[in-house]
């Protein structure tokens, strides 16, 4: 293209990066997707053609500069192209969470006033059709998978491939217009708008400019020495900023290959087949895999089991040090090498981590044991701390300085300060432009100098200079006696037990803490099977006396470790219940990224909390649940309240001052 330049100056938008990649890495794979059992591949030059056809088709359909184009579906190359094509024609792509129910979509689509919606399949199309009467600006919908769509009214509905065909047909007529619009894109034009799921209130549309995205992608790619040869597996929600940065930002900056799984259920198989070199997953994926490995090892033969445990113990001893380049004795190294041939290598291959160079986990705290397990195998798993408003990166762990309890040092070009209340503030090239149509929220989050309040409380560790996060600033409270209440700290300790999926701690303004606990059905179910404990439902298993007993022992252990912290010893769990249902995003109890909405849980289960505090031994409750299709039902349950052992917090009164 005419404005092709070398260096970062010319690379101020995704379409510009696409042109560069198509010229420079023309025959290198850009996208792969498994379909019909085979990995289908598109090179960068093919990708550029596909995106151009789509962009021309969008212009043909009437997409104007500044329009919002919503994109809803699972991770597929076509939808990634849609985002870039939308940007190329000067529109703003707005990816939405595909598992959102229709009303949630109605809010977002209405808020940004999307004129165009691109959906993956009939399921998403139906949701949009259901709410389209509420959407005044909505005009056209484009769908990808034609299955089941044939008999729909096609006045406002178009098939993706037809739009591309029309674009190709109108090439000569519209290419001038497309080039004109692309040339206008610079660092200040909007790259994408992402709605934050928001643990409180309505979602907010975070506007990210090309500067935010391209600069963040560049800095982070350089930080981890990412190259054109990387392969990643894109399976996390497209509406999430992390996926946007990894699968689009960094992928376009470096020119590496994005692989899309065949379906949500095949992710683990696809992971193994692709063997990514760069991988990102929330802690629950790593936890799930580890639980799976451990369960399957229980069923393995005696010799294999022995070998597995023997070498794993050795890896635990020296693996992390070897990875971090610390001195390790020759014999230990040799034994580790042998273990690598016999156990670690095959295990990594099975998990799909055979080729991994850099792995990240973020979003939630990861259990130190889980973290160390992967690192001891030689997988360079690191943590980062970030948020949508920062275009992901606030702090990252550099190679060789990785620990489970910190989130690393400030990312390149990020400045951090911590205010008197302990809240973390940052300023960086990734700092978002604004919340769309919401100047009040923008002003209260970002000050005139560009400092953004994260809402998280934390501190820099002396010596290492690493940041440690305590909790959400607004969740940190005070107990009745004035000592600090930091629920997440305790909840994370509880969640590190494989049996416990989720925990919610209450106690702000009260004299003692109580907790809700969700059991992990996979882990507890397996345990029940091995111990011949019959159960018919989640509810029955959750209320089983032996389950309660084992959870009680975990709570007691956590109390013991909490009691050791002089600041937080007041947060020990005095009483708890194991909930009769899993906290669920469909019921509004969690965000789509699986973070607990504390206030809503507190209101909804008010009766149980009352019972936890008034000393009753049981509580009967009726809970409304929403099924996947939006219908509602209710579950009745009688829950047993369990008392846990509490250690005396000797220093707890003193620390409060």
């Amino acid at each position, binding site marked *: 293209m005419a404005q092709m330049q070398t260096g970062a100056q010319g690379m101020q938008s995704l379409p510009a990066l696409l042109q560069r990649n198509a010229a420079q890495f023309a025959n290198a794979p850009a996208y792969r997707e498994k379909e019909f*059992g085979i990995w289908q591949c598109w090179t960068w030059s093919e990708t550029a053609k596909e995106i151009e056809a789509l962009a021309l088709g969008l212009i043909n359909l009437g997409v104007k500069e500044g329009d919002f184009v919503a994109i809803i579906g699972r991770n597929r190359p076509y939808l990634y192209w849609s985002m870039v094509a939308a940007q190329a024609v000067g529109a703003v792509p707005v990816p939405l969470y595909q598992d959102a129910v229709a009303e949630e979509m109605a809010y977002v689509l209405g808020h940004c006033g999307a004129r165009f919606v691109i959906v993956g399949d009939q399921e998403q199309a139906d949701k949009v059709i259901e709410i389209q009467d509420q959407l005044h600006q909505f005009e056209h919908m484009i769908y990808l998978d034609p299955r*089941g769509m044939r008999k729909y009214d096609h006045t406002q509905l178009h098939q993706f491939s037809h739009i591309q065909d029309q674009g190709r047909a109108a090439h000569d007529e519209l290419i001038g217009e497309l080039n004109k619009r692309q040339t206008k894109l610079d660092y200040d034009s909007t790259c994408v708008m992402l709605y934050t799921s928001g643990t409180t209130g309505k979602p907010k549309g975070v506007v990210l400019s090309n500067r935010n995205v391209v600069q963040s992608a560049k800095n982070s790619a350089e930080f981890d020495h990412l190259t054109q040869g990387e392969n990643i597996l894109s399976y996390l929600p497209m509406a999430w900023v992390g996926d946007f940065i990894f699968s689009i930002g960094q992928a376009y900056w470096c020119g590496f290959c994005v692989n899309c799984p065949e379906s949500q259920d095949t992710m683990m198989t696809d992971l193994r087949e692709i063997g990514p070199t760069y991988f990102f997953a929330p802690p629950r994926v790593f936890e799930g895999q580890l639980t799976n490995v451990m369960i399957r090892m229980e069923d393995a033969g005696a010799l294999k089991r022995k070998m597995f445990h023997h070498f794993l113990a050795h890896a635990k001893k020296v693996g992390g040090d070897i990875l971090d380049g610390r001195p390790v004795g020759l014999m230990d190294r040799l034994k580790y090498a042998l273990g690598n041939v016999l156990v670690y290598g095959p295990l990594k291959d099975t998990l799909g981590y055979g080729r991994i160079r850099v792995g990240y986990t973020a979003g939630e705290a990861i259990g130190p044991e889980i973290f160390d397990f992967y690192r001891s195998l030689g997988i360079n798993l690191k943590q980062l701390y970030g948020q949508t408003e920062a275009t992901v990166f606030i702090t990252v762990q550099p190679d060789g300085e990785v620990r489970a309890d910190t989130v690393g040092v400030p990312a390149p070009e990020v400045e951090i300060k911590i205010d008197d209340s302990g809240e973390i503030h940052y300023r960086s090239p990734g700092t978002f432009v604004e919340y769309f149509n919401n100047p009040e929220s923008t002003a209260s989050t970002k000050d005139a100098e560009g400092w953004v309040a994260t809402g998280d409380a934390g501190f820099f560790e002396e010596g290492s200079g690493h940041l440690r996060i305590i909790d959400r600033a607004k969740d940190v409270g005070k107990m009745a006696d004035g000592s600090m209440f930091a629920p997440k700290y305790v909840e994370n300790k509880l969640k590190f037990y494989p049996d416990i999926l989720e925990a919610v701690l209450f106690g702000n303004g009260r004299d003692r803490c109580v907790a809700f606990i969700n059991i992990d059905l996979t882990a507890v179910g397996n345990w029940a099977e091995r111990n011949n404990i019959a159960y018919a439902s989640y509810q029955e298993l959750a209320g089983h006396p032996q389950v309660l007993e084992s959870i009680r022992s975990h709570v007691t252990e956590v109390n013991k470790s909490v009691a050791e912290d002089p600041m937080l010893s007041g947060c020990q769990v005095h009483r708890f219940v194991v909930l009769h249902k899993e906290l669920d995003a469909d019921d509004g109890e969690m965000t789509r990224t699986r973070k607990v909405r504390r206030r809503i849980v507190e209101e909804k289960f008010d009766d149980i909390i009352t019972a936890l505090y008034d000393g009753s031994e049981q509580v009967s409750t009726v809970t409304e649940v929403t099924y996947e299709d939006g219908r509602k039902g209710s579950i009745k349950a009688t829950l047993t309240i369990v008392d846990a052992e509490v250690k005396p917090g000797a220093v707890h009164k003193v620390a409060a001052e």
Partner: protein
Amino acid sequence: MLDNSLSYVTDDGRTIGGVVMEMKNITLRFGGVVAIQDISFDIREGEIRAIIGPNGAGKSSMLNVISGFYVPQEGEVLFHGKKRPPMRPYEVARQGIARTFQNIALFEGMSVLDNVMTGRLNYMKTGLFSQALWKGKAEAEETENREVVERIIDFLEIQHIRKTPVARLPYGLKKRVELARALAAEPKLLLLDEPMAGMNVEEKEDMSRFILDVNDEFGTTIALIEHDMGVVMDLSDRVVVMDYGKKIGDGTPDEVRNNQDVIDAYLGVSHD
């Protein structure tokens, strides 16, 4: 061949054609037991035709008559207007009829993929010898058939269990694999024997959606037997109701629902 004078377009835009199969005064006896007594009805091209009735009404026997497995003592079965002679199962399959079973009949030790591939048997023309060598034609043929099978796997969303042995699958998925195998034969007429038996609400919804999609996408004529009245009424274009081997109702779901005999058969009637 088809009498298209009856053809019409449904509310949701599907075209229902002429009569594909006609049952004329069928009576089936097992020794002294009369399983089916003088029943007549037809199945039209492109429709979803349900046969319902209480336990022991003779529904499965009826399906076996349609599939050619049972030969009725009286009456005749017309397929595309011609009287159908007694046939062997493979001959039935070649005519474009495929079925699933009430009690799943899959090869338990084989993978899902292999099971579905068996549905392509009638499309494999190469001999045993060349298949064993897997050269030239045999290889090309397998690739071709595998493609069809992969499309069905994609259609029924069973990619994640492609390589899993059937024995390891839960019941609901096995039922789906059976449907996949039947579809692999690319049938004109698909017979489903209680496709939803023993499923929970969500599995039933999934299966209903697949049945509708199969009918819609491939234009397959479907005859099904089902217990669950709600499901049947939502799915089918026309319903035959049987009770004690006799036909007590026939028509659209609405007609059947308001038929007094049907109500009596299902709800019971007081004898006073």
